[in-house]
Each structure stands twice: as structure tokens, then as C-alpha cells.
């Protein structure tokens, strides 16, 4: 990687003000990773613009000097997406945190991309509206990051993921040009560029403003928590609920190891620690008929062997039942210092056998796997806990994780459900894409980013040979 040109920092400072350009190597250390601790590469500088104009000037400066531009939101990503793996400058959106417009009558809002997911929902709640996609990290992650990762969340089973709610994007392209894709709630009479940009993982440009569709808050909610002796029983309950034609807003499973971590934390949700799995089922919508649906689901759970089913009687109880699920990842820090958060999707019907294979792989590599998953859509997170200071264990984690991915792909699934490819899963891309398909991806990126400077080294492998990088490579990017 090349050293930054001598006047680059001054030019950036001229664009955003000297306080918002960070170049001191010690200070850059905190930007060396996101929530996926396995990858650590510090950027050469960080710039924090406050609006689209500043961001565009920053991009222009970087374009002139041909320096890589890496977008970063809150750094809660789980695939190393916001790291300057090929060197360059991180452009953070932490100061772009203003809600620009809430238009309740048209159920839309326009926000700067650094606005936090929950802040948007909180701001629209007085109008009886919310922003539906609810990643478990919603209190911390940004709308821009959600757009880039096409994030899902527990309630996306019924509501659909981010892409369904983004109607317009203001984007600063890698050369500094600013464009609106879509917007004003209208269908663009051309290619669906908004759809193309959502999920682009920061490789097409920096989204600075986002127009979103809002959803009415549900009139009523019914939440159940079912406790099972085994993970398989919980899986069977999910299958019967879905095949009976019930449409829950969420169907979420946590396994024994996860329950243990949650119950040891301040978010203890009262899940019994000797249970094999806990299933959260939620229905929402109009009041009429909701209770019956919940009752049916309760019967299915019992038929599948649930030893206990709890039903939330109040909003507080509902929050309590959810707490254990929503904070599950974070609490795993209690099991071991490091966590490899995995993310794969398999056809729902294949879940039981995939889970059995994962358990077998974990046993064989003597590793502890904690499963959390959006069972309704087959998106599973087999998380491996480990200690990165133990090099031998780290190697086992890498090997096991590769096998787990293989099992998911073989079962007709894919390598990511919602956390993206980033720097972490590039090496698995050839498992699901042919060389021809990868070439198409490269060409699409080339349209937005002809110089290959926007978040380089992510998503699409640059060459044909799959990279063999381990999860604990530490590449110092200091020049």
C-alpha cells in the first residue's frame, strides 16, 4: 500500500475542518476492526464529514490522489466490511446523524446515513409509525450500514429486510459526484438502482442520505416463549407453525450455550439454563384473531414437546422475553474472549440435519458453538467462541467454520444471511458463484467504481484463486 501523499491531510482538513481528520497512528488503532474481532487493519486516516457536501469534497480529494475510500457507520458490522484492508482512508458517518424529514402522511422519512436505526423508529413513533427492519444491533447500528449490508432482523420474517424499505438514496460516488438514486417515494422509470445499491457493502460509494418507507406500528402484539429439551424439538415446532400457514412476525431460536451466556448477563431473561433451546414466537397486526393465532402456535409448540410455554401479558413482559434474544451476541463475551459470529442461510426444512452436522463438527474440533437463529427464514448464526491468544485453537476455529459453511452450501443454502461478505467471506464466494458470475459482479462494481478504489478487497475476490487468509491475520496498515 502506498504512503499518503504529503498534502492529502491538509486537503481533507480543508474539506471537513481539522478536528475531523484523524491521522495519528495511535488514535487510528480504534478503527482497526468492527464487531468481528478476527480482522484487524488500521486505516491510514479517518475523516468525519458532517453532510453530503463535505463528503463529496472528501471523495474528490481522495479521487485526485487515487486513495481508497472506505465507508464506515457504527462499526457493528460482522464481516470486517468497514476496514481499510487495502489501506486508504475511512470515511465515517458518525456526525451525519440528523433526521432531515419525517412525512407521516406519506409514511416516509429522509435521514442522514449516520442516524441510528432505533433513533429513527423513536422519532417516528409519535406518529404511530416505525422503521420496520430491526437488526438485533438496532440500538447501535446506522441506517447507512443497514443499507450497505441489506440488514435483516427478527421481525423481517413477516416484514421483509432493509431493501423493501429503502425508496431513495443520495450517494457520493468514489469520484465525488453526488447522485440521487430513486427518491420521493416514486418508482424509478428505469433500472432499479436503489435495489442495486442496497447490499453493496460500501463498494459502490458512500450513501449520505436515505429515504425510507415507514410502517404503522402494529395495533396488537402477542409474544410467546417456548422452552424445549432439545434444539431439534424447537426446529420441529417451527416447521409445524409455518406449514400450518400461520404467519408470525418473528420466529427466533436460541440454543443451550446461548441461554447460558444470556442468563449469566445483566440481560438475564429468566430462560431455564438446563433447557436445550428456547423459541420466541411473535404475532402482530390487527387485534382481531391475533390471540387465536398465538393459541394455535402454543399448541404446536406443546405438540413438538415444549416443556413450558410462556405468554407475555404486558409490554414489559414482552420486552423481557425478547431481551435474551436481542442481546444474545453480546452476552457471548461471557463464554470466551473471542467470538466468530457466523451467518448462513439454509432451506428451512433442512435445518434439523444442518444443526446436527454443526454439532458434530463442533465436537470433532472440540469447540463450543452457540446457535442463535432466525428460524423462520432458515438464517442461522452458529457462533464459535474461542480465545484468539491460543493460536492452535484459532486454527481449529477456522477449519471448523469452513466445514460449517460447506455443510450449509451443500444443503442448498448460502454463505451469508444478513451480515454480508465483507473481508471475511470473500474466500467462500467461489462456493456459491461460478467464475462467470463473479465476473458479472466485478463489472457491476466497475460501473460505480471504475478505479477499484471504493472499499477495495471486499466482497468480490479480486482474482480467481480463493484466498486462504485465516481469521486472525493482523495486517498493520501503518505506512
Amino acid at each position: 500500500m502506498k504512503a499518503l501523499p504529503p498534502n492529502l491531510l491538509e486537503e481533507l482538513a480543508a474539506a471537513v475542518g481539522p478536528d475531523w481528520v484523524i491521522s495519528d497512528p495511535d488514535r487510528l488503532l480504534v478503527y482497526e476492526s468492527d464487531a468481528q474481532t478476527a480482522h484487524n487493519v488500521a486505516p491510514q486516516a479517518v475523516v468525519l464529514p458532517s453532510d453530503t457536501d463535505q463528503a463529496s469534497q472528501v471523495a474528490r480529494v481522495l479521487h485526485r490522489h487515487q486513495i481508497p475510500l472506505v465507508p464506515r457507520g457504527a462499526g457493528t458490522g460482522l464481516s470486517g466490511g468497514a476496514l481499510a484492508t487495502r489501506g486508504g482512508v475511512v470515511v465515517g458517518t458518525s456526525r451525519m446523524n440528523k433526521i432531515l424529514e419525517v412525512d407521516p402522511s406519506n409514511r416516509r422519512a429522509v435521514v442522514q446515513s449516520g442516524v441510528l436505526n432505533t433513533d429513527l423508529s423513536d422519532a417516528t413513533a409519535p406518529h404511530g409509525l416505525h422503521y420496520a427492519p430491526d437488526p438485533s444491533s438496532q440500538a447501535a447500528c446506522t441506517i447507512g450500514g443497514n443499507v450497505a449490508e441489506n440488514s435483516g432482523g427478527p421481525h423481517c420474517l413477516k416484514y421483509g429486510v432493509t431493501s423493501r424499505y429503502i425508496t431513495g438514496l443520495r450517494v457520493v460516488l468514489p469520484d465525488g459526484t453526488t447522485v440521487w438514486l430513486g427518491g420521493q417515494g416514486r418508482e424509478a422509470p428505469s433500472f432499479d438502482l436503489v435495489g442495486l445499491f442496497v447490499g453493496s457493502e460500501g463498494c459502490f460509494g458512500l450513501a449520505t442520505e436515505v429515504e425510507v418507507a415507514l410502517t404503522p406500528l402494529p395495533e396488537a402484539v402477542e409474544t410467546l416463549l417456548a422452552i424445549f429439551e432439545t434444539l431439534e424439538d424447537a426446529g420441529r415446532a417451527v416447521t409445524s407453525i409455518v406449514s400450518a400457514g400461520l404467519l408470525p412476525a418473528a420466529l427466533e431460536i436460541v440454543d443451550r450455550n446461548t441461554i447460558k451466556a444470556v442468563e449469566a448477563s445483566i440481560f438475564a431473561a429468566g430462560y431455564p439454563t438446563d433447557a436445550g433451546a428456547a423459541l420466541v414466537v411473535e404475532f402482530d397486526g390487527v387485534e382481531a384473531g391475533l390471540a387465536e393465532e398465538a393459541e394455535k402456535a402454543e399448541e404446536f409448540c406443546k405438540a413438538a414437546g415444549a416443556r413450558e410455554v410462556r405468554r407475555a401479558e404486558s409490554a414489559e413482559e414482552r420486552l423481557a422475553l425478547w431481551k435474551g434474544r436481542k442481546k444474545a451476541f453480546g452476552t457471548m463475551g461471557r463464554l470466551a474472549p473471542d467470538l466468530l459470529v457466523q451467518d448462513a442461510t439454509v432451506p428451512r426444512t433442512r435445518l434439523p440435519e444442518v444443526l446436527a452436522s454443526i454439532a458434530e463438527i463442533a465436537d470433532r474440533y472440540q469447540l463450543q458453538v452457540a446457535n442463535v437463529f432466525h428460524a423462520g427464514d432458515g438464517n442461522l448464526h452458529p457462533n464459535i467462541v474461542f480465545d484468539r491468544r491460543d493460536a492452535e485453537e484459532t486454527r481449529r476455529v477456522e477449519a471448523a467454520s469452513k466445514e460449517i459453511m460447506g455443510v450449509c452450501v451443500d444443503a442448498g443454502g448460502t454463505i451469508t444471511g444478513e451480515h454480508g461478505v465483507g473481508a471475511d467471506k470473500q474466500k467462500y464466494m467461489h462456493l456459491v458463484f461460478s467464475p462467470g458470475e463473479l465476473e458479472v459482479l466485478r463489472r457491476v462494481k466497475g460501473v460505480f467504481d471504475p478505479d477499484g478504489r471504493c472499499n477495495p478487497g471486499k466482497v468480490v475476490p479480486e482474482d480467481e484463486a480463493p484466498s486462504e487468509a485465516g481469521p486472525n491475520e493482523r495486517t498493520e496498515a501503518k505506512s
Partner: protein
Amino acid sequence: MKNLLRELKKQEEKLFNCVQCGFCLPVCPTYSRLGDEADSPRGRIHFMRAVVEGRIEPASETLNRHLDRCLGCRACESVCPSGVEYGRLLEGAREVTAGAVKPNLLTRLLPRVMASPSLLPPAMLLARALRATGFPRLVALRIPDEGFLGQVKLGMGMIAATARPEVLDGGWGRNVIKAETGSEDLVGAGVRVGILKGCVQDGLLGRVNRATARVLEANGYGLVEVGGQGCCGAIHAHTGGLGGARDLALKNIEAFEARELDLVAVNAAGCGAAMKDYSHLLADDSEYKDRAVNLAGRIRDVSELLSHPGILPGGALELSVTYDAPCHLLHAQRIAEEPISLLRSISGLELIPLPGHDECCGGAGIYGITHPELGGRISRDKVLSILETGAQVVATGNPGCMMQIGAGLEAEGANVDVVHPIELLDESYRRGGLYS
């Protein structure tokens, strides 16, 4: 350096508990205002980890700047799903950095005065005399915010803020009469309680200590005078002087043990948090560690103490009040409901919710003086949100917060009084004729 690192290394497992999820970023007052992850809890933990791993020098100016900027409010701890004990990590880290770089004059001087039985009383006497002249209030209102003068203004405002507020009209009788009925049912009867007087609280806010004593007696507790007690050591621990904090803890253990108390009532959230943590502070001291555990287990915030099984009702107090939660009560001691129930128990009192009541007021010891710009911003936000409630009184249970918020209100020339919640209960007892 090896020696100093020991403190952080001991915490290594706790550092490694951080899974970098980022949940703590939005609640951090410094990150939410500066937007730089180096000023976020996750960033600070990352720095500490880098120190342990030898990737950054304890003397690094950058490291020190960003650790110094931490308010120590521990809001990050309240939301951390992984149970990272940030407050303890910070104390360890500050001890390491304090050994590597020289802290500023004030940070060195203040803990020394507070710990000294010969320096503290004259210093407090001076402050009281100054307060009596009315000069601090004038200065706090008139002089500009900028530069050195701004710091003087804040200091004077803090002193002025400790003056007796108008809503409490005083005129106390000497004796406390226990309520005719019901007092036997209260846990109070027979429970021996000592009160931590504190350093600043005793010197400038003695009225809060007196109110605490009256209210506890009225609720049937047997008060025991505890001589020989001193400063709790919180400020020492927070500024990297763990050694000094330990000395003070030993002194307090001796003093409180000697009186064979059941419980110790503390009305300063920062002191309560520090004393509950004596067990950790002295965990390596073979002679004192069990005694520290014993005392720590008896420490109760006064609102916590009174919450069980119920508070004796007093007379009506027609006031609109808003409550600001001290960080060291809410985040460090996880006491959220008790002060609110205490206020709700007062008839006639209208409690108006304070938006952002769970965010630091910017007091954080002497933060406003060491970080005038950022501290000023945090503190102004708090004052504005208090003024927006339209309440006549703001109640908060920590002398540092009372003084910081009070100084902010003085500077605005606002007619809002700052009191400790216990003072409102005390006033309602007086009006209800429980004292004579």
C-alpha cells in the same frame, strides 16, 4: 512500567470480555458529541487492550487524551451485554497512565486536600465564608464563559450552588419526634445506622447530612455517630491514585467497624459507589480484604435504605420537581427506581420526567474545569433540558451533580433550586409536623 501494567494485566480477562459489539457507543456522552471512536467506550477499551498487548505506550499522548476525556459515568456499563466492568478497567488504566505522565496540578492537588484532615476543614471553611459574601453567585452570573475566566466562573458557580435553596425554608426544631403510629412496623426499629459524612458534603452541603439524619430517625433507625471517618477515596481512585484510595478505605473500615453498625447510609452517590467497591479495591490485601467485604455489604444509598419496607409519609409539599439520576447511582450502583419512589411518596409533589435523566451532567469530579469545552457542552445540554421541564426544583443525590447542575443554572440566572431528594422528604416531614 512493568509494575504499573500489573494493574491492567490483572484486568486482562475483563478486557477480553469486550466483544466489540458497539452497543455502548450511543450512550456515551463523549462519543455522541465528538463522533470519534477514540472517544467511545469501545475505543477506550481497545486502547487499554493495546497497552496490555504492548502496541501502544502508556505514556502515549493520544491514549491519555482519550482516557482523560472519559467522564467515568459508566453509562456504557449499564448497556453492555457482555458485562465488561468498565469502571474498574478505567481505574486500572488511569493508575497506569498516571504513572507514565504527570497529571495536571488540580488533579494532583484536589485529592490531597480531600484526604487531609488538616487541609480539608480550613479549605471548606474558606469556601463557606466565600459563599456567605454572595460574591460567587455574582461572579457565576456575570463573567464570561471563555478560557481561564470560564473556569473561575464554574468554580464559583459550584460554590454558590451549595447555598440553601429558597424552597426549603429551614426553621428546624432540635428534636425529632417519632410518628405516633406505624413506626414499629418499619424496619428501622433497632437497626443501628451510621452516616457517611463525606468531605465536600460535610463541608458545603452539611444541610443534606442533617436532613438525612432527621429523616432516618423519623423512620425509626437508630443513628450512631461515627467518629474518625473521612473521605471515601472515590476521587483518588478515579484519578489514578488507587494507593491513596486504599489508605482512605482502611481508615473508614476502622472507623465504621468500631461502631458495630448494621448498615451505613450514604447520601452521596459517588461515595456510595466507591464504598460498595471497597471489596474490590482491597481484594489483594490479606489483612483487610474480608473486613472490606463486610463493610461494603453494609453500604446503602439513603434512597435504597428507605425503600424497604416503606417510607413514613409526611406533610404535603406543593412543588414541581424533576429528577436527574447521578451516574454513580444509576449506572454504578444500578439504583434507578428508589429515588423516584422516594419522591413519589411525598404528597402534593408533582414529579416531571426529565428527558436524558440517565445521561451524565458533565460534573464527573472536576471535569468541567479540566475539560471546559466538552464539559461545558454536556452540562449546558443538561441545564437546557431541566429548564424545558419547567420544574421549580431539580433533585439529584450526589454533591458533585448538585454543584455542577447548580453552577449551570446560576450561569443562566435561572430560578430553579437544586436539592437532594432526601431534603424534600425532610421538608415534607417538617411541614407535616413530624419534627418539633
